[in-house]
C-alpha cells in the first residue's frame, strides 16, 4: 500500500470538528521528519496550523511561509490567487489584472459569485503542484486542509461544475486540468477524516459515496480520529476489583472508567460499521487523554498515520 506521503497531493476532507487540521499538521511534521519537502495549505479565514506547531508567522495571507526546515505553510487568499492568475492569463499582465480587480463594481460582483474562492484555491494548488526545482517537484507533498464538508461537497465539486459552466477557453481548460489532477490516483489521494460515532460515520459513508461515485477521486483509506481506548485493560481483573472499592474517590474513579468504557464500546461498534460499509482500510488515531496541545502530541499521531491502514 502506498504511504500517504507517496502522493504529490493529499486533500484532507470531512465534516467540521473531525480533526482535519490535526491530521494535516501531523502529516506535515511526519513529512518534514522524513526529509521531504511539504507544503501545508489552509483554506479557512484564519490560520490554525502555525499556532498548533508553536510557530508565529508574520506577513500577509496568500504568501508561503516556512514553519520548519522542509515544512512550508500557505494560508490561501483567494483575492491574491486571483490576481496572480489574471496576471498570468491576461495579455496586459499584472497591470491589467490590478486594474480589473480594483474596479469596485467588479469586486462587488465577484464577492457574490459562489464558488470562485474554491475554484481559485484549487487552481493555486494545481499550479503549485506543477512547480519544479530542477528535475524534482518543488514540493514532494502538498497537504490541503479542505473546508468542512457541509451542505454538499462544495469544495471538490467546484472544478467539475466550473468546467461544465464555462464551456470553452482557458478557464474551461484550467478547471478541467484541476479536475484531472484531483482524479489522478498516481498524484492525488483524498483522505476523509471521521469520528467513530453514529452520526459522523453515517456522514462519512455519504461523503465516500459522493467522492467515489460522483467525483471519481481516489480514496484508499479513511482516518478514524479520536478513538477512545479501553480503560484500564491491564492488569487483568483490575476493572472488577476497583468496582468493589468504597469511598467518594473510588466511586469517582469507577464512574470515569465506566464512562470511557461505554464510549470505547460505542467507538468499536461504529468503527466496525464504517469498515464494513465502506470496504476501505482504516487508520485509527487514538484520542489522546489530554487532548492535542502541540507539536509533541501531533508527532504521536505520525506513526499510525504513516503505517499501513488496516481493516479492523
Amino acid at each position, binding site marked *: 500500500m502506498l504511504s500517504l506521503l507517496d502522493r504529490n497531493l493529499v486533500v484532507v476532507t470531512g465534516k467540521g470538528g473531525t480533526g482535519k487540521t490535526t491530521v494535516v499538521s501531523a502529516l506535515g511534521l511526519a513529512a518534514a521528519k522524513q526529509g521531504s519537502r511539504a507544503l501545508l495549505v489552509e483554506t479557512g479565514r484564519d490560520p490554525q496550523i502555525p499556532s498548533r506547531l508553536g510557530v508565529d508567522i508574520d506577513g500577509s495571507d496568500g504568501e508561503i511561509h516556512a514553519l520548519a526546515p522542509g515544512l512550508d505553510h500557505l494560508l490561501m487568499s483567494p483575492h491574491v490567487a486571483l490576481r496572480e492568475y489574471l496576471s498570468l492569463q491576461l495579455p496586459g499582465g499584472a497591470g491589467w489584472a490590478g486594474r480589473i480587480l480594483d474596479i469596485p463594481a467588479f469586486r462587488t460582483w465577484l464577492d*457574490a459569485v*459562489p464558488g470562485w474562492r474554491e475554484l481559485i484555491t484549487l487552481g493555486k494548488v494545481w499550479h503549485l503542484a506543477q512547480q519544479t526545482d530542477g528535475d524534482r517537484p518543488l514540493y514532494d507533498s502538498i497537504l490541503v486542509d479542505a473546508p468542512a464538508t457541509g451542505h454538499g461537497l462544495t469544495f471538490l465539486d467546484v472544478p467539475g461544475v466550473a468546467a461544465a459552466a464555462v464551456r470553452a477557453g482557458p478557464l474551461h481548460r484550467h478547471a478541467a486540468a484541476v479536475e484531472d489532477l484531483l482524479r489522478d490516483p498516481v498524484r492525488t489521494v483524498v483522505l476523509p477524516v471521521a469520528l467513530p460515532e453514529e452520526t459522523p460515520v453515517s456522514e462519512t459513508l455519504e461523503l465516500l459515496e459522493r467522492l467515489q461515485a460522483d467525483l471519481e477521486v481516489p480514496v484508499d483509506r479513511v482516518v478514524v480520529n479520536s478513538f477512545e481506548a479501553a480503560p484500564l485493560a491491564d492488569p487483568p481483573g483490575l476493572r472488577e476489583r476497583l468496582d468493589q472499592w468504597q469511598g467518594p474517590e473510588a466511586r469517582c474513579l469507577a464512574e470515569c472508567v465506566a464512562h470511557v468504557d461505554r464510549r470505547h464500546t460505542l467507538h468499536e461498534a461504529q468503527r466496525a460499521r464504517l469498515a464494513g460499509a465502506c470496504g476501505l482500510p482504516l487508520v485509527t488515531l487514538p484520542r489522546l487523554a489530554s487532548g492535542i496541545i502541540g507539536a509533541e502530541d501531533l508527532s504521536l499521531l505520525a506513526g499510525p498515520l504513516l503505517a499501513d491502514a488496516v481493516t479492523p
Partner: protein
Amino acid sequence: MSTFETLLEARVLFCVGPGGVGKTTMAAAVAMAAARSGKKTLVVTIDPARRLADALNISPAADTPVAVEGAGLPHGMLRALMVEPKRAFDRLVSRLSPDEATRATLFANPLYQQISSRLAGSAEYAAMARVQELSEDPEIEFLVVDTPPAAHALDFLDAPERLNGLLDPKALQWWIRPAASAGRLGFRWLQRGARGLVQALERVTGLGFLEDISEFLLAFEQLTTGFRDRADRMQTLLSGADAAYLLATAPSPQSVSQSRDFILRLAERDIVPRAIVANRVRPWPDPGVPLPIGPKAQRAYAKQLPAEDTADAVVAVEWLGAYAVGVDRDRHALAPLLEEATRNDAFVALIPELAGDVHDLDGLVQIEHALSGRQPTKRSS
C-alpha cells in the same frame, strides 16, 4: 448570569458556532424546551444528520414545516423544517420575478443553475430568505435557526449585505446601461467600462460564459427591487431586538478559539450572544473530589482507594490522572469564554459528553434537560 428561560423571550434564536459542535442538536433541544413551555415553535435546519432528520420527521422534499410528536411534547406545538438551498432559491426567484418570461430565462440560464444549486454561498442566501419569510408568520411564536458551520455561518450573517452589494443600483449601473432591454445582442447593453472588462475577461473565460453572465445580470436586474427589500428585511431581522444568538462550542482549545473569533465578529455587528453552550464536556462525577493531577495529588488520591494491592491503586490513579488532565484542559479552555459570557449576563450551560451520540428524540430530551436544568419528568409516551 441569565436563566435558560430568558432565551425563550426572543422571537428568533440563531444557533451559531464552529463545525461539529452539535448546533443542530442544540437547536432542536431548545426548540423542544420552548414547545414544552407553551410556545408554538418551529426549528429550521439546513444540513442535519440523516438520523436526526428522521427523528424530527423532516426531509428536504417537504417544503413546509412538519409536526414533531413524541417525547412527551405537547401536541402540535413543535414543528421542524429542513431548508433545501436549491429549492429555497428557486422559490425566492419565482416569487420575485415580475413575469413568467424573466423567471423562465433565469431558470434556464446555466449560471443561475450553478449558483442556485450547490456552490458555496448560495445556501446561505436561500436559507436566510426562507427564515426571514418564516419570521413574519404570525403562527410561529418561537423560531430556532440552526446555521451552517462557522466559516459559513458568517456568510449566513453576511448574506443580506452581499445580496445588497450585488444588487446595488450603482454597481449594476456600472455594468448595465439603464435603457438596456429587449433585443440585447452581444454586449451592446453593457456600459463602456464593463464592455472593456468583459472583453478582457473573455480571453480567460471564453465567450459563452460571459453571455451567460450578461443574460443572468439582465434578467436578475428585474428582481432587484424585490431582492433589496428582502435583504433589508433580513438585515433588520438579524440585528433587531427580536433576534437572539446561542453560541455552541466544544471544549477543545481549537473550538474555543474559533468561538472567540466568532464572538468578535458578532460584536462588530453589536450582537452579544445571549447564550453560550459548551457541548461534550468531559464529565468529572464528583465536584467534591479534587482532580488527581501531578504526582502529589495522585499519591493523595491513591491513599483514598481501599485497594488490597497498592499496585492496583497506582495503576488506576495513573489512568485517572490522564483522564483528569483532559477534564482540566476542557475547564481551562472554556474558562475565558464562560467568564466573558457571565460578564455579558449571558446564559451559560455545560453539556456533559454523553456515552453515545445524539440522533433521536430521547437523546434530544437528555440535551434539553441538561440545557434547561429541568429534571426529566415521567412521561406517558
